[in-house]
């Protein structure tokens, strides 16, 4: 038999496959900036020094780079840079969450470094992709702490992943700030874990209050993701608050994250004749559920939580999602967001979602704490973060309370002409 050139091609392809497979199993392959292969999780490092990362032009960039390289072995706070870790879903089902947050953090990082850094040292961010999977989140944080020796960790968006990463931070006594995980269990009983956003019972109460008081609706149906701690928590809290405020839950249906067909649940919901449907899930399912609800002839509005916050929600939902509401940390058309929105647009060419703002705030709160902390050791830094009071962030004024949560208001937005528009600010603790 004649041997074709494909024999050689095959071997090369196999080698590639093997590399991809290895990288997918455990992203130990490749040095800094070298593991951009198809299968590997993307790890990016940037010194973020004012965007001067061009080809060896300024001596400054070169110096920062070599300092970073020399530093990698010896530890986070030694040398001239302070290493900060970020684990996020840069790829995967909730990829826009991780990407927006990372953009926000990098924007803040650039500003801090341009203003002289922290105590004369430049900050450096190391981001690892967890692909939206909790086992990956755990190993990403372990790697950040044990091998990169970061002084603090930022992340995650999804609560289940923050719980996984938080456990590791707790074990190694490294402080962690979650920009936007809202499930109470993320910080409950933790010494080292903080967040710069509100928690779900608060958010759910705000949604319930908005529904009963602003929209004056009393019959709600629920369709939630039973595989997500976030979704289940919101559903439980909403049910409690809504019934307390005089509403009734006429249908309570569940789906599994990743499902594509919701027609059975929606048929049941339609038969129950609700005035509004509460869908506490993430944006991909939110958009799909809206499409299928409209196909079944359901015309009542849908209302979601902050998991709906993505530019892809109107992109997927299209006309089906028009007029639907969701609760959020901030709205891009709020006055206090204006400056941030402009800066973000100038750098990334897109309107930031709330996650970008929260990422920005998470780093700024950390920097503020670093400046006040006695040292950058885990315990001292955590104490400084815990003492954060009336910090003016772009998503609102942040005060870390005794449970390590931020006390902030909830904003309700509505999708109009394909973009979220501010409708109301709701504080469930009043009245």
């Amino acid at each position, binding site marked *: 038999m*004649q041997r074709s050139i494909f024999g050689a091609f095959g071997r090369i392809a196999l080698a590639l*496959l093997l590399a991809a*497979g290895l990288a997918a199993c455990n992203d130990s392959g490749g040095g800094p900036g070298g593991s951009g292969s198809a299968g590997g999780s993307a790890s990016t490092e940037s010194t973020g020094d004012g965007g001067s990362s061009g080809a060896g032009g300024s001596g400054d960039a070169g110096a920062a780079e070599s300092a970073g390289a020399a530093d990698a072995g010896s530890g986070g706070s030694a040398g001239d840079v302070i290493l900060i870790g970020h684990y996020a879903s840069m790829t995967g089902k909730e990829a826009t969450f991780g990407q927006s947050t990372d953009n926000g953090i990098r924007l803040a990082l650039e500003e801090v470094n341009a203003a002289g850094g922290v105590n004369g040292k430049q900050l450096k961010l190391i981001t690892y992709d967890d692909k939206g999977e909790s086992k990956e989140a755990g190993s990403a944080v372990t790697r950040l702490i044990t091998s990169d020796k970061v002084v603090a960790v930022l992340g995650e968006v999804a609560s289940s992943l923050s719980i996984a990463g938080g456990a590791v931070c707790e074990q190694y006594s490294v402080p962690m700030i979650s920009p936007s995980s809202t499930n109470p269990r993320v910080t409950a009983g933790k010494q080292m874990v903080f967040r710069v956003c509100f928690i779900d019972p608060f958010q759910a109460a705000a949604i319930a209050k908005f529904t009963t008081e602003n929209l004056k609706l009393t019959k709600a149906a629920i369709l939630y993701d039973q595989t997500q701690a976030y979704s289940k928590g919101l559903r439980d809290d909403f049910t409690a608050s809504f019934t307390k405020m005089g509403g009734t839950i006429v249908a309570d249906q569940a789906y599994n*994250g990743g499902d*594509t067909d919701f027609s059975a*649940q929606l048929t049941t919901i339609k038969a129950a004749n609700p005035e509004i449907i509460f869908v506490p899930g993430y944006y*991909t399912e939110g958009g799909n559920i809206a499409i299928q609800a409209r196909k079944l002839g359901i015309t009542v509005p849908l209302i979601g939580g902050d998991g709906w916050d993505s530019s*892809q929600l109107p*992109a*997927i939902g299209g006309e089906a999602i028009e007029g639907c509401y969701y609760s959020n940390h901030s709205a891009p058309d709020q006055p206090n967001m204006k400056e941030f929105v402009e800066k973000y647009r100038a750098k990334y060419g897109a309107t930031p979602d709330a996650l970008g703002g929260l990422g920005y705030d998470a780093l700024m709160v950390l920097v503020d704490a670093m400046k006040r902390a006695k040292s950058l050791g885990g315990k001292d830094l955590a104490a400084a973060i815990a003492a954060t009071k009336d910090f003016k962030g772009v998503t609102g004024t942040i005060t870390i309370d005794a449970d390590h949560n931020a006390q902030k208001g909830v904003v309700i937005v509505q999708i109009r002409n394909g973009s979220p528009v501010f409708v109301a600010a709701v504080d469930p603790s009043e009245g």
Partner: protein
Amino acid sequence: MDAIAVGSLYALIALGYTMVYGILKFINFAHSDVFVLGAWLSFVGAGIAGLDPAREASIGPWVFWVLAALWAAAGIAAVYELVLRPALSRRLDRRLPAPRWHLNLSLVAAWGSIAVGVLHLAKGAASAGFGFAAGGIILLLAMMVCGLTGFCIERLTYKPLRRAPRLNVLITAIGVSLLLQNIGQLNWMFGTRPDRMPTLLPEAELFTIGTAVRVRLVDVMVVGTAVVLMVVLDWLVFRTKIGRAMRAVSFSPPNASLMGINVDRVISFTFVLGAMLAAAAGFLFSQKYPGLNQTAASGWVLLGLKAFVAAVIGGIGNIRGAMLGGLLIGLLEFFVAQYLPDGASLRDIFVFGALIVVLLFKPSGVLGKSATEKV
């Protein structure tokens, strides 16, 4: 109606699993990723052809450059073969190897050029107000590109392992699956953001039976297309020469080879066929469920797994069994979701439970013939 539509999609995917198993006796785990590729290619194709209102029509310049590069490579190979090789062989006094791959390259280039032509056709159809026909053209396009992908996967990864133990091939298949999932996530491919497939098949409701059964045009067309494809496949396998060759190879590759059948070509053909069916399923799926998730999302994996279950339930290696299995799984899933309390969240349990039941009581599947394994 949903059940039958989704069932026929499972059947289309299951056919690919079952055909490959029938011939090579291994499970092509990368098959469900070809299905995903089909769905995303339909999306990209529709975008390029200007069928997506959210996107500007463009035949991206990269398409041109890729094609140009392929044609150039094919040209260089031709020059080498026709001019350089004879000349150099004479001078060096030994025969240089023939570039057998230039034929394949020309094939790729030609295939790609046809695809671009087809896209222009879709654009024309859309601007002339035949969104309907445009849908069909996008379907053909996705099938062509996926057919090519299937061919390449087989040639580059499975063929070199033809004589390796079956386990090696199986693991390679998992590797190919991971590779496809992760390449799909790259920004210059489909990226990581979920997106919405534009509606190409009309959604109009035709009629309703009672209150629960709504028959929509899109469902009818999904089922119709699937049935047409399956009839064509059936004809191909049971009534044509290449079909007879496929069945012969499935029966015994060495014997088929002795009878003058080019086994490698039959295997390639099978892969192309399976991939094209998967692509068709991908396109139809994207019409039924327009919110497309990124290529590595768990939902896709689950769909592929269910199609695999359908293939096993129908009797793996049996083409008509796969069609039946797909329908059975679709019906089971939707009836459970609709009529059992809390069934919607338990549907997967029933699907995989059915697999266990079938494996326990009739391991060769509903339509499979029971054969004792020869060792």
